[in-house]
């Protein structure tokens, strides 16, 4: 019998406590509010200053980007990708480190390494990308990166890169016509020899 009344009493007190908490939250909504009105307000991105020699790498996990002019076609990123979402095809350049005007190939990277290969195809399937950032680290020319962070001056940070068609999410970074142009050059060379 005592338990019966104690239970009723406990019910009343604990429930009143709960009601008090929700009431306080309701009247203090202006102070407590956590909602952001999304398209107008956006979540403040935390300051990212990682402050040591790694600062050239960025810590934002957004879409991948490749500065194709700097790519030497070493395939390191393709090999390290755990989901095989990077596909690179290269052809041997006729002369190492020299520009090829026809296809817009630039022979020397911004780190002044001379390219021995022409990247005819550099595709990244962002539908499969798992944003693990593993491809960014091994790149010797630092030409593959996720947009944002220290690279924010190159590209705006864009988390919302949704598309209506899945095939639009396969990013093709190699310059248009590189493949055909390169084929022509190789054919010409073959004919010569």
């Amino acid at each position, binding site marked *: 019998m005592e338990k019966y009344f104690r239970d009723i009493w406990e019910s009343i007190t604990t*429930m009143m406590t*709960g009601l008090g908490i*929700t009431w306080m939250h309701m009247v203090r909504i202006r102070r407590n509010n956590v909602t952001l009105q999304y398209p107008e307000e956006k979540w403040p991105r*935390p300051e990212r200053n990682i402050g040591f020699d790694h600062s050239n790498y960025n810590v934002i*996990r957004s879409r991948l980007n490749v500065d194709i002019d700097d790519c030497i076609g070493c395939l390191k990123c393709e090999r390290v990708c755990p989901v095989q979402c990077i596909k690179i095809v290269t052809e041997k350049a006729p002369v190492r480190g020299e520009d090829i005007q026809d296809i817009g190939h630039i022979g020397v990277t911004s780190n002044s390494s001379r390219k021995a290969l022409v990247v005819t195809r550099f595709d990244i399937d962002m539908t499969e990308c798992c944003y693990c950032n593993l491809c960014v680290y091994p790149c010797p020319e630092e030409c593959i990166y996720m947009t944002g962070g220290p690279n924010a001056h190159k590209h705006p940070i864009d988390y919302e890169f949704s598309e209506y068609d899945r095939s639009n999410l396969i990013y093709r970074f190699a310059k248009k016509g590189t493949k055909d142009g390169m084929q022509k050059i190789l054919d010409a060379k073959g004919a010569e020899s």
Partner: protein
Amino acid sequence: MGVIHGEEMVLNIGPQHPSTHGVLRLKVKTDGEIISEITPVIGYLHRCFEKHCENMTYDQVIPYTDRCDYLAAMANNFGYVVAVEELMELKVPEKVEYIRVIMAEFQRIASHLLALGVYGLDIGAFTPFLFMLRDRERILDMFEMTCGARLLYNYMWVGGVSHDLPKGFVETAFQFLDYFEPQIDEYNKLLTYNKIFVERTADIGVLPADVAISYGVSGPNLRASGVKWDLRRNAPYSIYDKFEFDVCIGDGAKGTLGDCWDRYYVRMLEVKESVKILRQALAQIPKDGDVHQALPKKIRPPKGSIYSRTETPRGDLGFYIVSDGSPIPTRVKMRSPAFTALAVLGELAGGWMMSDVISILGSLDIVLGEIDR
């Protein structure tokens, strides 16, 4: 008084159901509201984790471990790298150990918050769930600040971590802890001691200690049954032996030892303990040091095998790794704590009512990504 038995009905809870925490199917035999038999059917989220691991290098496995227990990805990273490092007999710098512990404990708070909140939601209380998610977001913000990702981090590497802590992280973390600690009391007042909640969870789904051990149940579920077993204390890995904290066990305060309320409350207490660990770790963390110092050039563990366990928010996460000396593991077996926790459901839930099954399932805190792998 005799008990009237009606015709038994087979009910499918799941694979799509609001409170199966993923794609879990429960084949339930019911007699009215009473459950007579319950059979979990798993495999709907099977993503061939172990087969994948046999085809890639040791560092490529880490993003996959993220996706096993997607609510405690840091803890999974931690478990995996600890196993590989143990296999390679690699010593990591002290600063890295501190960072790892900080991240793992933050992840524990985040994971427990979600577990507790969703448990409230299973019972029908909506508001505590949103309060807890609100605070979890702040932890995820800190993770984003550190490594750029909010859910699947790929942060811990064999021999180090991917990024050093950003400037101002320690201050942010202390701010969060100061804000967070009073919130725990509010959760308790709002949900834990609420009479309806207690009625729904106390004395329900009692898991005796010997059954729990026989089923390999671990983590908070085991501790709620009164077994003082925590790998951070009993078999310390990393630098957990440096910190002062209590191993929280259930005491049957509201009902029987090992009931749903105990399992819930042990998690709540563990959040408090994690805050304690975090305060110590954040105060002691060395200022200088390179987190990439011990990264091996090529991860090529010697021939052999290792079974290594770590304490994730869900329990003992074991990695059984077999290496043949090549850069690709021969076999990676993940012994997931949620797998064993779900296995015990059939034993626990028989004889209870429909609503209790949901309550018991929620209290076990399973993550289907980890069960099906």
